């Protein structure tokens, strides 16, 4: 201790040579009781120094973390565990279904989904309950888009637009444009009058077309005519070729 109040007067080393001499004299071996005690203290110091260093080396992150940090860490782990367990049970369920259940259950499920997707993608022909809407007179692309949107909202699963000779299947990527003699749908020029064939529930589809401001109104105000017929066998024969992937 440099600052303890010794009863003696300080006699600071006047030169660095003297300072070095004093250091050497103090460090030189002496035989005295306190020297032994000091040595023991230094052994203890070295021992505890290494102990403290090696003790702080392992998992010091957790040991030095605050309680709130530890709580949030624990919380995090608990949440992750719950998430992983939920995923685990879901996957085990799926595994059991695939292994233990009907041998063809998985295959049938996959086929069913493929059929659904084929209808939506327009890659397969389809015959079913629905309506046919014949439109004559002036028809603009925007009117047609509005009508198609309404039909889709009303649950139409497949839509086809045709004139006397050509038919176009509507899918997600279809587009419309005005043309001098009628309407261009996805690059195919159709001549008025056209027919929209829709597969879906007729009791929902027909109101969707007849609502005020809908297809019937806007075509009628342009001097055209709309004719709606319900059928059990609406034939949608146009398909969209699947892109080669």
């Amino acid at each position: 201790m440099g600052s303890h109040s010794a009863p003696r007067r300080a006699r600071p080393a006047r030169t660095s040579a003297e300072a070095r001499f004093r250091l050497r004299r103090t460090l030189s071996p002496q035989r005295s009781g306190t020297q032994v005690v000091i040595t023991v203290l230094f052994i203890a110091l070295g021992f505890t120094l290494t102990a403290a260093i090696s003790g702080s080396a392992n998992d010091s992150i957790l040991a030095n973390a605050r309680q709130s940090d530890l709580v949030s860490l624990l919380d995090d782990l608990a949440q992750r565990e719950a998430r992983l367990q939920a995923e685990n049970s879901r996957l085990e369920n799926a595994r059991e279904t695939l292994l233990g259940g009907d041998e063809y259950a998985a295959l049938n499920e996959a086929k069913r989904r493929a059929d659904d997707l084929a209808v939506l993608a327009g890659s397969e022909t389809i015959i079913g309950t629905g309506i046919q809407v014949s439109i004559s007179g002036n028809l603009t692309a925007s009117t047609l888009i509005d009508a198609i949107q309404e039909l889709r909202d009303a649950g139409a699963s497949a839509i086809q637009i045709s004139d006397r000779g050509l038919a176009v299947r509507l899918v997600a990527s279809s587009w419309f444009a005005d043309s001098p003699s009628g309407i261009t749908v996805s690059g195919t020029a159709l001549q008025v009058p056209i027919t929209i064939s829709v597969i879906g529930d007729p009791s929902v589809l027909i109101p969707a077309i007849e609502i005020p401001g809908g297809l019937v109104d806007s075509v009628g105000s342009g001097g055209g005519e709309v004719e709606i017929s319900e059928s059990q066998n609406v034939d949608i024969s146009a398909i969209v070729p699947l892109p080669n992937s």
Partner: protein
Amino acid sequence: MIPAIGLLVGIVLGLLLQPTVPVWLQPYLPIAVVAALDAVFGAFRSVLDGLFNDRIFVISFLSNVLVAAVIVFLGDQLGVGSQMSTGVVVVLTMRIFANVAAIRRHLLKA
């Protein structure tokens, strides 16, 4: 010289035995070590000041360690253990720096 050898012996012993620090001792050990280091540097300084007294060194060494541990223990009981140990370490480190600076001035006159 013998205490220096003792320090080396202690370090070698610690490395060889790989002691595991008891959990209740873990917060106090680093503080005690820093306090002891402060006493050692203070001793070197007092040697150069011509004030060194080995009896005083032994007492200051032990009391330094004890007081540091007691302060941290008190902080633990008061619920401010980590802040208290930080404070003790800061103070002791400042003293070590001051002592080392004094030693440097003595030896190098700079």
